């Protein structure tokens, strides 16, 4: 379903990292994890691909595909973004700092 599942660093059972490209990470502001941020995944052309809300501990997770991605976070306290390049299926970690 399209509703955003709970955001944790623990992957759902059966996630096959030899086939799936998972981007995961934490939103931070002033060094602390930031929950409740709207985290958006943009593809290599800048097009919106997905959006989730970071968990209380600032975590988010996307199931993407190999490629270059931008992760952008929007929060009352500011915005931030980071880029991640996934060369092949696997788990990729990224930190987004909001200021």
């Amino acid at each position, binding site marked *: *379903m*399209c*509703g*955003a*599942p*709970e955001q944790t660093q623990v992957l*759902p059972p*059966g*996630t*096959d990292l030899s*086939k*799936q490209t998972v981007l995961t990470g934490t939103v931070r502001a002033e060094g602390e994890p930031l929950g*409740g941020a*709207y985290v*958006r*995944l943009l*593809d290599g*052309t800048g*097009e*919106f*691909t*997905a*959006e*989730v*809300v970071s968990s209380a501990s600032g975590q988010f*997770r*996307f*199931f*993407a*595909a190999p490629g270059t991605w931008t992760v952008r976070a*929007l*929060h*009352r306290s500011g915005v931030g973004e980071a880029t991640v390049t996934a060369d092949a299926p696997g788990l990729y970690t990224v930190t987004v700092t909001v200021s």
Partner: protein
Amino acid sequence: MSRENVLVTPDWAEQNLDTDGVVFVEVDEDTTAYDAGHIPGAVKINWKTELQDPVIRDFVDKGAFEKLLSDKGISNDDTVVLYGGNNNWFAAYAYWYFKLYGHDNVKLLDGGRKKWELDGRPLNTDEVKRPATSYTAKHDQDTSIRAFRQEVVDAIGNKNLVDVRSPDEFAGKILAPAHLPQEVAQRPGHIPTAINVPWSKAANDDGTFKSDDELRALYEGAGLDNGKPTIAYCRIGERSSHTWFVLHELLGQPDVKNYDGSWTEYGSLVGAPIELGSKG
């Protein structure tokens, strides 16, 4: 159709939280967001457990819809203001659903939950209990706004088909929005002759809708033929409700249908034509 009839601003909403005859309804697939804090006075509808039939892959029927609205304390005369997470996807789905059963006085909160939160507007966790009503749906489902599979197959090359998924889903590189696992049974790709206008192009970053002029330019630029009927689809039917809302309610196009089931159904149809790759 004009914007004021179908959309309310957060300012209007905040000024009308206590207005009689206005009911705020948060619609989500899971209601944990609502439970952690909702617009004061808003009731919740769980799209999955309350709007979908528990057994058959379809909507609840007229009787069940009437019971649901009665239990929620919504009357026929109420102005229903819908909002939710996911950039109002499920709220737009519910909006379309209310229209299917003839509830005319329904509006979306522009920007949904996201804009409300980003503005720092009030949320609380108070339990909301409205007295039950006896709601009567105006008519059975209005199929002039709902497309079924055969109609979609017949539309290839004849009607506008608008695929509102992301470019990678359209091209067949992924099968679901990227916040979800990708292991599903459907074949990837899109319906031949469909144009790809991701729903997100109709919204600003804060979840509000773009202006009518921007929206018109968007669909014209993508090759939508205004002289033809249109069917919008996505993976399930909620993102395409968002686009249905834009085309039918904001831009006032007369013949626009939403295809509930969308790619989860079409991508599983044996023998149905599929195209791969992005449009030039």
